[in-house]
């Protein structure tokens, strides 16, 4: 197939320079570069962070919009942010703590499960919102240009607000149960960052795939459910046989959930090896997702 080759940027620059030199008045500005060069991208384009930075205001406004929209016209308003994890934790406490008597590493089960639920809800919320972000805002994609990455990324940030509120609730619960945090609390942001990295990485894949295959809209709830039970949300990692722990640790959710418990409640069966494995896997998923997203991004407007 006869396709135009991408122009050589160096040759282009030389051309512009000579054109400028030929002009008699010779403006003080040396070379006039195009603000934007539009041409077909080929192969695997890298993440354009500079472009994303230019649109950082949009990213934050989109995240803010998500938060505002979710609680518009609700009777309880932002109280829902507190209620959601609390109710889930209560149900789990009754079901798994009282009836099934799952171990909780020696903590009051409600504290144990709330820490897990808070982190898991964050992770699941990002997946859900980001996964559908390109579909729900399809109109935007076909009508205006901005880095498409801003859409799934906005979900990463908007869900953070719920997480922060949940962690506040956890703090209150800890006071009620008389559990004092230790210096390990300083490590909490690192585990939140790991959760954000993992969630963003996975949602880059999901959101991009969703544009092409609408099946993912339907598959997502199951994916999230299965993933939850494959993660130590309602049970402790200790119930997993020791020889399977490393493989179990391939699930990055294990590291950020158990890591949060370690940082907040103090004890956990988390090993530094598991954290390392999880971080590595998250990075691979994230970088792969970013490349994949950029690869399919160019067709979004045509297929959404």
């Amino acid at each position, binding site marked *: 197939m006869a396709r135009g080759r991408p122009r050589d940027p160096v040759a282009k620059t030389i051309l512009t320079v000579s054109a400028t030199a030929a002009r008699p008045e010779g403006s003080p500005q040396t070379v006039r570069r*195009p603000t934007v060069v539009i041409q077909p991208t080929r192969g695997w384009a890298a993440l354009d962070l500079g472009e994303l930075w230019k649109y950082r205001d949009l990213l934050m406004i989109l995240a803010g919009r998500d938060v505002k929209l979710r609680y518009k016209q609700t009777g309880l308003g932002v109280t829902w942010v507190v209620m959601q994890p609390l109710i889930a934790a209560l149900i789990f406490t009754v079901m798994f703590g009282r009836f099934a008597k799952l171990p909780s590493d020696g903590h009051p089960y409600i504290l144990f499960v709330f820490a897990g639920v808070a982190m898991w809800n964050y992770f699941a919320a990002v997946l859900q919102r980001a996964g559908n972000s390109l579909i729900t805002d399809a109109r935007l994609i076909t009508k205006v240009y901005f880095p498409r990455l801003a859409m799934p990324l906005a979900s990463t940030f908007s869900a953070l607000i719920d997480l922060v509120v949940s962690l506040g609730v956890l703090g209150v619960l800890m006071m009620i149960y008389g559990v004092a945090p230790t210096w390990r609390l300083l490590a909490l942001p690192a585990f939140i960052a790991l959760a954000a990295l993992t969630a963003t990485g996975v949602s880059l894949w999901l959101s991009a795939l969703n544009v*092409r295959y609408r099946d993912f809209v339907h598959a997502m709830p199951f994916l999230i459910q299965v993933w939850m039970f494959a993660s130590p949300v309602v049970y402790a990692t200790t119930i997993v046989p020791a020889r399977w722990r490393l493989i179990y640790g391939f699930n990055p959710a294990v590291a950020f959930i158990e890591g949060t418990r370690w940082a907040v409640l103090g004890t956990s069966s988390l090993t530094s090896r598991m954290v390392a494995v999880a971080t590595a896997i998250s990075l691979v998923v994230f970088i792969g997702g970013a490349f994949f997203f950029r690869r399919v991004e160019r067709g979004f407007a045509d297929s959404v």
Partner: protein
Amino acid sequence: MNETAIRVEGISKSYQIARALSRQPYRTLQEEVVALPRTLWKRALGRSEPLETFWALTDVSFEVREGEVVGIIGRNGAGKSTLLKILSRITEPTRGRADIYGRVGALLEVGTGFHPELTGRENIFLSGAILGMRRNEIARRFDEIVSFAEVEQFIDTPTKRYSSGMYTRLAFAVAAHLEPEILLVDEVLAVGDSAFQKKCLGKMEDVAGQGRTVFFVSHNTQAVRQLCGRCILLEHGRVISDAPTDETLAIYNQRLRDMRVDAETGINNPENRRGSGAIRFTGVSVEGTDGEERYGFRMGETIHFRLAWQLNESMRGVAIVIALRSGISREMVTSARHVVTTDHLPAGARGSVVVEFPDVYIRPGEYPLYLHISEAVPTKTNYDVLDDLTPPLVIAPGGRRTNPNFDPSQPLGVFSIPSRMIAEQTVEQLSAVSADSSRARVPASE
């Protein structure tokens, strides 16, 4: 000579279209899994499913200089919108390259990013950011935007409670305060009432007057004539003409005239032709009283519409509607319905009719035609519509029977209805003194 603002070199854009028309643009995983063995087998044999390649744009090149106002015209499907989407980076070209010098603002619709649940204030920030403004930039211009839109009292009300007029005003106000060096506009004028469209046109004239570059895509030839010094005509994705607006529009109208309307014309283009196919126009011709086909008339001339049709299903009678749209707002400005017959007609029946519009006292301008044919008692399906598919009717001033009250220097309104003064002339001279005193007061107040 001004510097280049946009340089487009050999831009082409193709879309892959599956052979079967029923195929959706996206596939479900299930479909792909089911089709997988076949696809693999075919690929192994080197016979992959042939996709039809549709070229929306073919080798388009041009250059726009700073401060130029360039129009892009062409029929639906000519590639205008695709070109605009490429220049605004919504979609990528398949081949070619475009260099853009300066900040681009693209207005492809009014109210991009508006969310009905959010308040006016929130939407201003959201829409502004989506259009490429920084937050502090929006904050700086916030008051200006609000007062331009005249929605001060409702700025903290969700926009879903706005009237559609308020909504459109606010949406346009945000876009109007975007200060790009290059403005790309697509048919924004096709929405809203005519007052709003005038405001849009006025704003674009302002932008152009400030020496910024405007790239205006439209099939509204009258708006293009008003705004653009230069005009590019696209047809089937190719540049047919790139010349001063008058020249390009002359070519455009000539090409429209050369195209004969028949039962098939524009049938795949719902914007121009609608209907089930139970009844079809088979020929349309606009003529003067001498029977010569033309679309240009002078005010006060008589116009004949010769329409031919064919039935593909049996029907109870036939009725036609001939309507004129405004060349600027595209609103219908007048319409006439004629029942041709109320007899029961079998499938395959053909016929033709000539409708005369005597003494057309319509103001000079372009009037796209809307032609409708249906069963005498209209049904939902048994009709055929030609909407702006023929060349527009062009009315020029100065016919032999021009209305004497027509003032060509004030092109207001649509019709030029004959009028005369019947009361006695009553001019009272008592204002002489007060006029002097008011004139005396003016310099005093300076």
